């Protein structure tokens, strides 16, 4: 480490009193009291001889010994040698922090790019003030403290004339001691801040838990004063937790930034890294700076095109994931699209300040109906909570119940639309997109198109417009071209799609540019769908998914000639495709254990291979006819109308399949299909085909593998007898649910699934076939199975039931009485579960779960007030176990 020279020391010593005074003044101004006691009085210029400083590094701090005293430096700034050799460059006044393009005549190679200043973060929403310290002011106390500490270090660096002041700096020992004291004082403030937030969290948690414990008998929930107190305590707890977590995250982010900088500036390739970082800084900021003169809105709009704003947008949630690997242009457009989410986030933030006023007046439900219908799902969810809060404040639901139900109905309707579209309508799908989706739904209703048409056109349109903006497409005069592209890529356009796109016209958008964008994004959507992937619906096996894949391929690819494929060819294809896929899956193959909600993907290579083989084998009309004939017993069982391809996401939200049982027919294994076709047309399918022989005889039992069933539809027509999925051969006639036998093992998950699915709903086919399995006594005995069963039965998203039942480290298991509160769990995402990927669908599931329990409680109250009161002492899981799980298990397997 470099020290000062002898002459420098003398010069520095001469100026020391003044310099220290200046430093003292600055630090005292910031409230660092210890400095007043530390800094030597003016005139005391004689440096006292002191021993060399030794330091010890621990995992979280650096401790150095100076004479008889110890000093501790925490956190990572030691790893941030930004200023090494560039101290002057980093002085605030040397260069503007954000390079202003509007005032710059930069031509490459003539004017140097801006100096690097990667210190701290750039707040996208704080007007930069050309190097003023105000621009760096953080709303996080902990960030502010860290910045002040770093500023002090810079001051000390200048004072000591060192390249960067740290524990290795040599020179005037007395001055160095003073400098260390200054940093130590700042470290203490950081520690204090952490200590304070932790203490606040502990106190808030204690208060929250104490209030819960007060309500031993569950009677206090009816007391408005208690409810208010509990809500406040919960809010305090949440706030305290958020403060601690945010501080920690901020700390991590800043430490990681320091590490990156360290690698950039100290690594073996510091020149190359530094150069790119310099350019990145320029790139990331320039749009922001460009908008500086145009006011806030213009700045925000322009910042949407900066990379950093794009990243912010993605962090804020991006419903339409950009085209990975589809080219830089697409990425840039997608990032800009992501920024729109960020922009609307900001817009909503501004609007949020007026929310309180809007919560009033919900008693006038009729007047509010119109506005409710135009709200986004998120806003509707908020309204629901506001009404609950309002009711709690009033102490009753008088005049609010109807409003609540209406708002909730709107919410569920919106969610149903969202689910049908296969979109996650969470916060990330902001006002604009949601509003447009509503328009689509309304227009589609008007045109009386089928649901399938709506789904097709709306999902495609929303996906494209989500990136580019609806109005842009309308205004660019390319509406009809857009429709035409939809037609070529996704099948026939619908009136709904045309209505969505609307009349052409308008100005301000470059048609050529937009045409290119639309074309790019359509290609990108195609590119990001490298596999054909489907979700298992109730009653489906892997062959159903293969059938969908074949249907999709035929629907999308005119070149494959699929429109002319016979049913026999299609059946052959799906069988072959599944066989190839099954081999590819290898150990991951879940034959026989596919559950509703599982996914199965078929890759393009397998599709191509199956298609090629099929076309090779069935070249002549005779061979095709022969194949059709041999497979007719199977093809006639299939409800082909279900597999008419109606655009991307055609089977999303599908209710699955059910089967008509033909009692006279018997079950036969799946291999019969190929065996049958082989024997019927030996010259077409030569014997000894590898794939035929390799088909396992114990193939997954799937309805379409059987002779005894035929697929009817996902929604049974009136008058048709629908039966549960057919059993394997060993099952007795009239089988309606899982069969359990002794001496076999089954995972809790599979057992729970089986019981949850019956007797009111069909068990998944593959699973049913394997349920030779579960001793009923074990089901009654095993806590794990009962719990898993309860989890399945609850219908909640994975993990939610676990949280309700077991709580977290800081939150106790949920009690029945919690259901009466306005707790965040039922409406808000992120707390207490936090780390899960949940969405509005999860919220809806929770609401239904809660309603089921509340309904049971009301029933108990009517039947037996005593039992009602007793049930109030239970946790939600205990209650659910007692009143739902046991009942269900007994229904499936009555106690002996």
């Amino acid at each position, binding site marked *: 480490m470099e020290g000062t020279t002898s002459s420098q020391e003398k010069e520095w010593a001469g100026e020391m009193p003044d310099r220290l005074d200046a430093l003292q003044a600055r630090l005292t101004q910031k409230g660092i009291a210890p400095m007043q006691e530390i800094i030597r009085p003016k005139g005391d210029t004689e440096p006292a001889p002191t021993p060399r400083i030794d330091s010890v590094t621990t995992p979280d701090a650096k401790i150095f010994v100076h004479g008889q005293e110890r000093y501790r430096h925490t956190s990572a700034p030691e790893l941030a040698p930004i200023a090494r050799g560039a101290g002057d460059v980093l002085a605030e006044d040397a260069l503007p922090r954000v390079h202003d393009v509007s005032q710059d005549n930069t031509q490459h190679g003539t004017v140097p790019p801006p100096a690097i200043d990667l210190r701290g*973060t750039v707040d996208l929403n704080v007007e930069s003030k050309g190097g003023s310290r105000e621009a760096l002011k953080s709303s996080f106390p902990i960030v502010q403290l860290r910045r002040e500490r770093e500023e002090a270090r810079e001051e000390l660096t200048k004072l000591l004339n060192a390249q960067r002041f740290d524990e290795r700096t040599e020179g005037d020992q007395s001055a160095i001691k003073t400098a260390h004291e200054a940093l130590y004082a700042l470290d203490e403030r950081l520690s204090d801040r952490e200590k304070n937030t932790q203490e606040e969290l502990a106190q808030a948690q204690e208060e929250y838990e104490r209030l819960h414990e007060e309500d031993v008998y569950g009677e206090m929930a009816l007391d408005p004063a208690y409810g208010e107190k509990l809500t406040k305590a919960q809010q305090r707890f949440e706030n305290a937790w958020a403060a601690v977590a945010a501080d920690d995250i901020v700390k991590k982010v800043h430490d990681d930034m320091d590490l990156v900088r360290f690698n950039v500036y100290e690594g073996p390739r510091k020149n190359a890294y530094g150069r790119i970082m310099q350019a990145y800084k320029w790139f990331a900021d320039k749009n922001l700076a460009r908008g500086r003169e145009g006011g806030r809105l213009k700045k925000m709009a322009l910042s949407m095109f900066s990379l950093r704003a794009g990243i912010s947008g993605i962090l804020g949630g991006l419903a339409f994931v950009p085209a990975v690997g589809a080219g830089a242009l697409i990425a840039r457009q997608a990032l800009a699209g992501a920024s729109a989410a960020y922009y609307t986030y900001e817009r909503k933030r501004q609007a949020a300040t007026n929310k309180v006023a809007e919560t009033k007046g919900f008693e006038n439900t009729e007047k509010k109906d119109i506005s409710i219908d135009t709200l986004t799902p998120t806003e509707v969810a908020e309204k629901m909570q506001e009404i609950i809060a309002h009711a709690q404040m009033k102490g009753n639901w008088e005049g609010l119940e109807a409003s609540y139900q209406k708002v909730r109905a709107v919410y569920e309707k919106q969610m149903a639309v969202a689910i049908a579209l296969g979109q996650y309508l969470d916060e990330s799908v902001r006002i604009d997109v949601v509003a447009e989706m509503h328009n689509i739904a309304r227009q589609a209703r008007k045109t009386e198109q089928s649901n399938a048409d709506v789904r097709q056109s709306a999902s495609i349109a929303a996906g494209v417009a989500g990136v580019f903006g609806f109005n842009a497409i309308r205004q660019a005069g390319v509406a009809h071209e857009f429709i035409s592209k939809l037609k070529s890529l996704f099948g026939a356009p619908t009136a709904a799609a045309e209505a969505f796109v609307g009349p052409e016209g308008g100005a301000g958008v470059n048609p050529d540019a937009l045409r290119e964008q639309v074309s790019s994004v359509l290609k990108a959507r195609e590119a990001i769908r490298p596999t054909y992937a489907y979700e298992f619906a109730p009653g489906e096996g892997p062959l159903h998914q293969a059938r969908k894949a074949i249907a999709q391929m035929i629907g999308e690819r005119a070149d494959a000639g699929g429109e002319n494929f016979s049913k026999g060819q299609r059946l052959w294809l799906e069988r072959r495709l599944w066989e190839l896929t099954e081999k590819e899956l290898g150990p991951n193959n879940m034959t026989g254990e596919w559950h509703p909600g599982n996914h199965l993907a078929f890759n393009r290579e397998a599709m191509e291979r199956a298609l090629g083989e099929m076309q090779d084998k069935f070249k002549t009309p005779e061979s095709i006819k022969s194949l059709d004939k041999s497979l007719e017993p199977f093809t006639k069982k299939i409800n082909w109308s279900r597999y008419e391809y109606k655009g991307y996401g055609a089977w999303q939200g599908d209710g699955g399949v059910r089967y008509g049982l033909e009692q006279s027919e018997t079950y036969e294994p799946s291999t019969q299909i190929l065996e049958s076709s082989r024997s019927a047309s030996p010259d077409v399918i030569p014997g000894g085909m590898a794939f035929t022989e390799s088909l396992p005889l114990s193939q997954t039992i799937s309805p379409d593998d059987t002779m005894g069933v035929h697929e009817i539809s996902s929604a049974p027509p009136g008058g048709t007898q629908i039966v549960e999925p057919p059993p394997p051969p060993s099952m007795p006639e009239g089988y309606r649910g899982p069969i359990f036998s002794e001496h076999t093992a089954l995972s809790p998950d599979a057992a729970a699934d089986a019981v949850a699915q019956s007797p009111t709903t069909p068990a998944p086919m593959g699973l049913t076939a394997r349920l030779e399995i579960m001793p009923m006594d074990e089901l009654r005995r095993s806590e794990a199975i009962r719990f898993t069963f309860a989890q399945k039965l609850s219908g909640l998203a994975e993990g939610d039931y676990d949280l309700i039942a077991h709580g977290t480290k800081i939150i106790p298991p949920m009690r029945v009485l919690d259901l009466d509160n306005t707790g965040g769990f039922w409406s*808000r995402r*992120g707390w207490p579960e936090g780390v899960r990927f949940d969405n509005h669908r999860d919220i809806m599931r929770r609401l239904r779960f809660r309603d089921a329990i509340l309904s049971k409680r009301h029933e108990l109250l009517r039947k037996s007030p005593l039992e009602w009161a007793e049930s109030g002492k239970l946790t939600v899981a205990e209650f659910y176990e007692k009143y739902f799980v046991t009942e269900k298990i007994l229904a499936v397997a009555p106690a002996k």
Partner: protein
Amino acid sequence: MERSLIQKALKGNIIEELGLESLPEEQKIELLASISELIGLRLMSRVAERLADKEAEEFAQLLEGDDVDKAFSWLHTRKIPFEEMALEEVARMKEELRRRANNFR
């Protein structure tokens, strides 16, 4: 990272996923900006790793130029999947922060 994980990671709002809705709005935005900044730095570090010194200079000049798309196209021709790396970094960061926040639960 596997693409499906990336897509999954990108879907949620990070503020909500971390359970920080009750933070003051300005802190939410500042946090978002800080995280974005870090992601940008990490991303550019990764790009730099893949470039020779001369190439780094060339890329830097393109970034500083008027047509930024050229910079990304330039990376693309060198088989550097910038957009994929960007998404990976965002997803990775989200995952790291989720884990971090989870320590407090």
